[in-house]
């Protein structure tokens, strides 16, 4: 029943979707291979004109991107087939550095996912990772008038803030913040998508000073409603531009400025084992109720967010100051030496100096002096905090276990590869990730059966589709049935059990095992389809299709 309800609301979870989706899969299953990876596919169809379909694809892409930012084990193969023409896109962050936050969230810290490459690439002296700082978790009081929130547990908000790109100490002049991006995540790190992008930002986020005192940083925020879907970046749920309070218009939208990233993780915890239906209940309610809840808890939320932002901006301020200090000092040192060398009447002294730096004349001596001074000091100062930590981790790599990953440090960076992130454990007494994993493992061991603690684990009431059913079971080619339609196809593969659960609970789409090899899978995907693995397909049929 819960999943049915969830399915019915899938359109509201992805409000940007305009097409009416028709699930062509009926039931599903999942399994783990020996590496612990579960792959599955889903297909759904929609009849839609091509322009809408493109927008929908972008909405789905950003949705997938947002998921993998906190679930780096997931890889999505996103295939779209329109009138028989297939396009494939893979979303995954394998082998990318992640940071295990102390709230149990694993966050991808690669800058390139958060800011555009031109901005990111303007200087070599930027760290290519973000360095999030966690605010303290705050329990959110749920107002009585918030409908449907009759829960035996509590909501916990944990903010995390980071600057992107993150400047290395003494390394660059990125000292201005040009924008703020806010990313919302619900229980289990599932994305929270606000009701509609086209609508004005919800109350809490409408007033920019409502949760952060920007004045203390001499910043003025204005909402940025122009969020283009057509970018390969994680799309923020809320975005602001920064204007200088002094009216310095030159700072507006400074392309070389930094972006303040603010992640708001709202989790659900209970002293009792949390039923999944509760989690999904919370998740479906939060997009509409979050603003009211945050308003109700304004003070504690503001304190927690402000703390995280303060920490980040203080670091930012220190780095900027340190950089300026270094530059000024180097300049003074070089000029002073030049003053003595050029002013000296001792040819022996001057010659010795020139020879030491292999300079032919004063001009060359100056440039070499500056260069070598700069290089030597930069060499010393350029250690980014994450590099130092990573070095440390590499040294003890052989003995490192999940214990490190569980270490309660908000800044502990783990250059984690898939399969290593064993320990994303929620701190409090809610439905722990590992509990869920155990739960799912049970299900995986008996793919045809229901997971013991999960209601209706495999019997999702998807719209039956003979063709697709056939595809899932290696029967008649669904491709044959779809070839005459405008079709978009979503393939999700290489997932851990957690991801399977995540996906199916988020979208309501069931996982089912692909029994056959080759066959119709290859027909649909055309190239490189992993037909020996289970798939979930998402396909849309265009109304104009013959």
């Amino acid at each position, binding site marked *: 029943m819960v999943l049915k309800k969830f399915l019915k609301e899938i359109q509201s979870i992805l409000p940007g979707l305009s097409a009416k989706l028709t699930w062509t899969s009926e039931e599903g299953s999942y399994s783990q291979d020996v590496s612990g990876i579960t792959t599955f596919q889903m297909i759904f169809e929609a009849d839609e004109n091509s322009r809408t379909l493109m927008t929908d694809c972008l909405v789905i892409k950003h949705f997938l991107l947002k998921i993998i930012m906190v679930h780096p084990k997931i890889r999505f193969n996103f295939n779209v087939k329109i009138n028989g023409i297939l396009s494939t896109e893979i979303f995954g962050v394998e082998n990318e550095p992640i940071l295990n936050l102390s709230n149990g969230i694993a966050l991808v810290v690669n800058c390139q996912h958060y800011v555009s490459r031109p901005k990111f690439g303007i200087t070599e002296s930027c760290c290519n990772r973000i360095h999030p700082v966690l605010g303290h978790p705050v329990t959110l009081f749920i107002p009585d008038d918030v409908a449907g929130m009759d829960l035996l547990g509590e909501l916990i908000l944990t903010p995390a803030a980071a600057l992107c790109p993150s400047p290395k100490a003494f390394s660059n002049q990125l000292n201005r913040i040009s924008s703020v991006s806010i990313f919302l995540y619900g229980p289990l790190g599932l994305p929270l998508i606000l009701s509609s992008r086209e609508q004005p930002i919800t109350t809490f986020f409408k007033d920019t000073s409502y949760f952060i005192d920007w004045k203390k940083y001499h910043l003025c925020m204005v909402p940025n409603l122009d969020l283009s879907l057509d970018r390969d970046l994680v799309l923020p749920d809320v975005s602001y531009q920064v204007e200088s309070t002094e009216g310095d218009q030159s700072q507006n939208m400074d392309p070389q400025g930094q972006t303040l990233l603010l992640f708001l993780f709202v989790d659900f915890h209970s002293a009792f084992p949390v039923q999944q239906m509760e989690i999904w209940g919370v998740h479906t309610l939060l997009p509409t109720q979050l603003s009211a809840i945050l308003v109700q808890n304004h003070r504690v939320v503001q304190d927690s967010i402000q703390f995280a932002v303060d920490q980040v901006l203080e670091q930012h301020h220190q780095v900027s100051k*340190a950089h300026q200090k270094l530059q*000024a000092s*180097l300049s003074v040192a070089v000029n002073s030496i030049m003053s003595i060398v050029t002013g000296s009447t001792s040819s022996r*002294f001057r010659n010795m100096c020139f020879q*030491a730096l292999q300079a032919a004349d004063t001009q060359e001596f100056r440039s070499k002096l500056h260069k070598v001074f700069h290089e030597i000091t930069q*060499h010393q100062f350029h250690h980014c905090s994450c590099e130092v930590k990573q070095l440390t981790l590499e040294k003890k790599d052989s003995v490192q276990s999940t214990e490190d990953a569980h270490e309660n440090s908000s800044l502990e960076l783990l250059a984690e590869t898939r399969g290593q992130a064993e320990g994303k454990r929620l701190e409090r007494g809610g439905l722990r990730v590992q509990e869920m994993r155990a739960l799912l493992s049970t299900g995986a061991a008996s793919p045809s059966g229901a997971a013991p603690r999960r209601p209706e684990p495999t019997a999702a009431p998807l719209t039956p589709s003979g063709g697709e059913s056939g595809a899932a079971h290696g029967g008649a080619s669904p491709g044959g049935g779809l070839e005459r339609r405008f079709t978009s196809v979503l393939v999700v593969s290489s997932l851990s059990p957690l991801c399977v659960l995540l996906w199916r609970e988020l979208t309501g789409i069931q996982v089912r095992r692909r029994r056959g090899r080759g066959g119709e899978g290859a027909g649909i995907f055309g190239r490189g389809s992993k037909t020996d693995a289970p798939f979930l397909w998402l396909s849309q049929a265009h109304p104009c299709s013959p």
Partner: protein
Amino acid sequence: MAFAPMGPEASFFEVLDRHRADLLAALRTGGGEHPGRGTRLASSPEVLASIEHVIQDIITSLARNEAPAFTLDDRASWGNMKFEDSVGLQMVSHCTTRKIKSDSPKSVKKFALILKILSMIYKLVQSNTYATKRDIYYTDSQLFGNQTVVDNIINDISCMLKVPRRSLHILSTSKGLVAGNLRYTEEDGTRVNCTCGVTAIAVPSNIQGIRNLITDAKFLLIIEKDATFQRLLDDNFCNKMSPCIMVTGKGVPDLNTRLLVKKLWDTFHIPIFTLVDADPHGIEIMCIYKYGSMSMSFDAHNLTVPAIRWLGLLPSDLKRLNIPKDSLIPLTRRDQTKLDSILKRPYVTCQPYWRKEMEIMADSKMKAEIQALTFLSSDYLSRVYLPNKLKFGGWI
């Protein structure tokens, strides 16, 4: 001398004369100074060569791809101090050092500032011009931040190059005053007569340059505070006690005032006394004149005068003169700390009377300013206290 006003009868100075004879005897028997040690006046070519040598070291480090650094003697550690009764506080020959690195966020600015001031010194010496520390500060006050930064770096450079500040062509505006039976000629030929009037003469900024010093003074009185100094001038103390010289450093003495006192001692070997408040701060100032300061210990031989005696205000005087408690001030915690610190210093062991006075102060937990004597009468200090002390040898 012709310009000497009438002072007390000759018998007044008998004890003073005996004290001077004792001092001279001590000098003759080898207990005196060891001239030639410490920093020495360096010629301009020598200073230029020293600075070039420093720059060469930096360039060599850079050529080796090593971050250059300055190695400075640690002038803030008592572990680097040694005490010699005849000299005062000196730096030990193998003292600990501190590195001012160019690749450390903490020290990179200081590294640059040292180079900056070195380059300025280089130009001053080359052009044979002089600048005050204040001038240097104002060349880029924003960069230096405050005058103390400049002062410390100049002292560091002086210590590093082992040349006195004067040889670096850096002067400081003197805040000290001098008055009394003294005449001299400044380096530029200006003749100065300090014979007492209502105003005193500023201590010259180029002590090494003054010559033709003439005096008949029987003693030199160092007065801690300008207010007391001015009061004594107003009371015509110099003429009443003539021939004598009075000097004030207006609190903690600057280098020029200390150099003047040292020069007067070296030139005339007359008894030198100090009149300071009966509090730890006053004792500290007296110790700077006598034994030198830690920060300038590398140049102690040119600055200290161990022959200096403590004339007043002695803590024991307070009880002896029945100064009422109302006129005394309780020691603060800071005073206590300072007093404890002084009592632990190496030179206190050879000054048992000083120790005793400090213990009296510590026991009573009270201190007194010189002005406390005005309780007895407004001119008690100049009319009774000092003459009696000088006549009967009330110094320690």
